[in-house]
């Protein structure tokens, strides 16, 4: 089941889970995703080849989407 995970002070929080055949759950997850983007988080899709992609909309068919904070030079 695809999940939306936010990396935060608790370690990580699962914000939403959805199924491809459940539009209502997906809409709720997409709304949660957009809300987190508004709060300054960035969305990343973790891909099976070990890479990650920056995303601005929640994809229906990626099993794990991770929200991260911005990075900056120290």
């Amino acid at each position, binding site marked *: 089941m695809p999940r939306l995970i936010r990396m*935060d002070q608790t*370690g990580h929080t699962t914000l939403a889970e959805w199924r491809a055949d459940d539009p209502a759950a997906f809409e709720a997850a997409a709304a949660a995703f957009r809300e987190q983007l508004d709060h300054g988080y960035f969305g990343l899709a973790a891909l099976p080849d070990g890479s990650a992609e920056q995303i601005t909309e929640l994809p229906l068919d990626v099993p*794990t989407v991770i929200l991260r904070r911005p*990075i900056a*030079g120290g």
Partner: protein
Amino acid sequence: MSTGGLPGGSLALATGDRPAGLPERASVPWRPRVDDPLLRRVGRRWTIGTAWHTTPLIAAAALLVTLAPVTAPVAIVLLAHAWIIPELYASRGAGVLRSRAPSRRGAERRALLLLGDLIDERARRLHEVSGLVLELGELGAWIIGERGAVLVRPGARRVNCYCVRATGSDLPAADRIAHLLLALRCDERDFATVANLAFSGACWRLRRRLRPEHRLALDAARRVCSRPRARGTGSAAARSPLAVHAPRGR
């Protein structure tokens, strides 16, 4: 307990054909995007800078001893300066891998679960003993810590140390590493562009300034970078002789 693994899927709905880079790059528009030739130029500049700082001191020491052997103690002080300057730079580079005080245990444990799902068994073992994650990229092998990353260049002779961190001070250590790891996987060149270069120099010089457990990660990265690399082999996981970032097959 696990976060459930990270199997894949299509991103066509979200990203189109071209993957996006890091949005953070917009915050440093004056910096040229890092690539291989730029890294070589930067490395040469650091070498010249180090020589510029130390050569006059060594020359002055030699001159003093030649002209008046009685000034040998002064010459020794000059030589010590010439030795200390590169060591201080290397120490600054080693600082990017130093960790903070541990955060709350529960949060740290949850963060470790997520980080563990992002890396494979060998990388997890290395993280257990060193607190660092090894990731192979196009520019070289990256050693990622909480507050920065060290790039071991192909050939394993030169390292670049970068200060870079996730914003916010409340994140557990493993989460900080996961932030940097994911940003690096998203776009390695943007990652190196956003990060601040703290040191570029010889591997051996950095190694002496590292904690023993961090040397394990540096040694692993050097081993990877010493091997001849297959070019154009597709995915990041396929490129990695250590397969350090292949997700679990669950």
